[in-house]
């Protein structure tokens, strides 16, 4: 018989099951948890914003008849050949090494079919990727793995990477098990060792030096291509202002939901600011320096659908960039591999041990057998479909707000569901005219 004096067993909120499992894992293995992806904790995000739509004081555009422009020019501040894209959604930098060659090829194929750009990563430019990408952005990273001037001149834009939303102030790590002969050769390092990617550039420190570095890159590429500067969501106002001052054509700002190939869990979840919190301060910096729309702002970190695209743009972004969503479109974490995820101690939707190189979907691996599972042509088509769908979604919302260009979306089109989101996005809390922090 049940003892009526017993209460229901109560688990700690502070020491929840995940926390306890992490303590046990650390005690067992003696290494911090390394994983891929971005922050998994619940953060204020675009879901906390809503569009108001048209009403008495605004009239909408016809969804199937009236045009809503999506084209964007990136980098017309100094470059002779700015990037001309059909849609304001670019593919973020992901490295060859973290991803397989065919996966990189698929990103290029998908981006090209959808009329946008893709980006190299920490590991250099592969032939597959260059060959299949109409517009390819070449990253200049602190490690300079695979960096060479011939590839630099083949690029359609250069992105100087200062930070990444998943790890502002952190470098990278490609563990030994993923270092195939080809990856080792491109990075000039022995096979099988852990390859650390430096957290800061070897030949410059601070914004004054960056300005000179940008001049060097422009001299080498004869001032033809735009120079992007990618920053993490750390101090978005000052970082954006300093990047503008250093001569950037485009700022890429990555919030903490932005993914990484491999970083410490403690870093991913505890350093940086949510994407939503970064946009308005960055736009402030652009406006204060009279550079809004002259230096373009690309926002990344947790963009999933057309509503997210539209919300980021309404807050002042010129374009967005996607990484995690692009990988899911290619087939990452697909439930069809559930049995294999289970064998790896995970489940579809949660698999993030990309650094181990055992990805059942064959995307984040260098294992030839697993790589064969992934077809770059089909993958490219899926990515293109996805990009076109989210563009159409964003257009649908923009038309409903009476805009004939995605860039005409504005904060006045939005309200917030939470006080936090209202404060971060600086739009009124739903049902009120209250913007927290704004002087009345």
């Amino acid at each position, binding site marked *: 018989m049940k003892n009526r004096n017993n209460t229901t067993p109560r688990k700690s909120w502070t020491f929840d099951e995940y926390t306890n499992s992490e303590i046990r894992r650390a005690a067992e293995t003696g290494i911090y948890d390394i994983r891929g992806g971005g922050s998994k904790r619940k953060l204020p995000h675009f879901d906390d914003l809503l569009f108001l739509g048209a009403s008495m004081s605004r009239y909408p555009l016809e969804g199937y008849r009236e045009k809503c422009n999506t084209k964007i020019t990136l980098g017309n501040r100094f470059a002779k050949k700015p990037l001309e894209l059909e849609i304001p959604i670019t593919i973020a930098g992901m490295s060859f090494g973290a991803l397989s060659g065919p996966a990189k090829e698929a990103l290029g194929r998908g981006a090209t079919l959808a009329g946008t750009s893709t980006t190299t990563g920490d590991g250099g430019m592969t032939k597959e990727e260059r060959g299949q990408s109409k517009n390819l952005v070449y990253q200049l990273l602190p490690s300079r793995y695979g960096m060479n001037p011939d590839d630099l001149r083949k690029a359609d834009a250069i992105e100087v990477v200062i930070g990444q939303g998943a790890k502002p102030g952190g470098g990278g790590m490609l563990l030994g098990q993923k270092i195939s002969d080809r990856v080792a050769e491109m990075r000039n390092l022995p096979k099988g*060792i852990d390859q650390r990617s430096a957290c800061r550039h070897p030949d410059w420190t601070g914004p004054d030096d960056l300005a*000179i570095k940008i001049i060097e890159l422009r001299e080498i590429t004869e001032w033809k291509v735009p120079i992007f500067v990618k920053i993490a969501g750390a101090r978005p106002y000052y970082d954006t202002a300093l990047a503008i001052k250093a001569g950037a054509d485009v700022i890429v700002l990555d919030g903490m939901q932005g993914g990484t190939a491999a970083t410490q869990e403690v870093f991913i979840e505890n350093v940086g600011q949510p994407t939503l919190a970064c946009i308005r301060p960055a736009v402030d910096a652009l406006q204060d320096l009279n550079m809004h729309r002259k230096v373009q702002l690309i926002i990344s970190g947790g963009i999933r659908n057309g509503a997210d695209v539209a919300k980021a743009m309404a807050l002042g972004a010129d374009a967005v960039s996607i990484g995690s969503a692009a990988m899911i479109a290619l087939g990452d974490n697909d439930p069809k591999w559930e049995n294999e995820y289970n064998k790896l101690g995970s489940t579809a939707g949660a698999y993030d041990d990309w650094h181990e190189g055992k990805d059942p979907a064959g995307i984040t691996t260098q294992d030839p057998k697993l790589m064969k599972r992934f077809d770059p042509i089909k993958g490219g088509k899926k990515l293109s479909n996805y990009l076109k769908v989210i563009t159409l979604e964003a257009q649908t919302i923009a038309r409903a707000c009476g805009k004939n260009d995605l860039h005409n979306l504005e904060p006045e089109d939005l309200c917030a569901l939470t006080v936090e989101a209202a404060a971060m996005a600086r739009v009124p809390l739903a049902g009120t005219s209250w913007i927290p922090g704004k002087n009345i």
Partner: protein
Amino acid sequence: MHFDLRKKNLRETNSFLQNIDRKKNQRDFIITNPDGHHAICAGLKNDISVTVKGHTGYYCGGMNQKAKITIEGNAGTGLAENMMSGTIHVKGNVSQSAGATAHGGTIIIDGDASSRCGISMKGVDIIVKGSVGHMSAFMAQSGSLLICGDAGEALGDSVYETNIYIAGKVSNLGADCVEKKMNKFHLKKIDELLKKGNIKKYKANNFKRYGSARKLYNFNIDNVSAY
């Protein structure tokens, strides 16, 4: 052919040197009045010879391919950064991060080099006739760094497979950097570097060799105090 940087701007000068008309068979160039300009001779890609008469700013000879660049003065930060091939010879001293991430070719520094000389170098040979500053050869991946003088603190911190040869004193070594055995292969390599640098004051057996202990190549929690 002669470029006076007070009369011809940097872009025009670099553009000419980057796009050499091979039919004209011009191979030797002189730049005067560099006045510390940045990115002089950045991105050259042909087998030409350029002499810069004076001091240069940041990134002189950046990402050089094939060209031989001689600087008759001092050079600023990031000399020959990410160089792929060719030779850069500085007759004076150089600032920090000389030869950063350079993949190939040869850098000869007659004077001293500041901190982080050869940081993340990926195959270049760097010959320093004087001394180098702190954190030199930090995370250096491959190639050789020959130092006739002394080295500042944390030499070879987290070095990978670069060989560091030094004749003078080492303040202290960085994480995972140790003195390694000298053998015929390395003595031959030092001879080659001394010859390239036209150094007669030293012989191969004056040098000690430092490189990676390879203890940090794969993460181990028991090495955590080394990081």
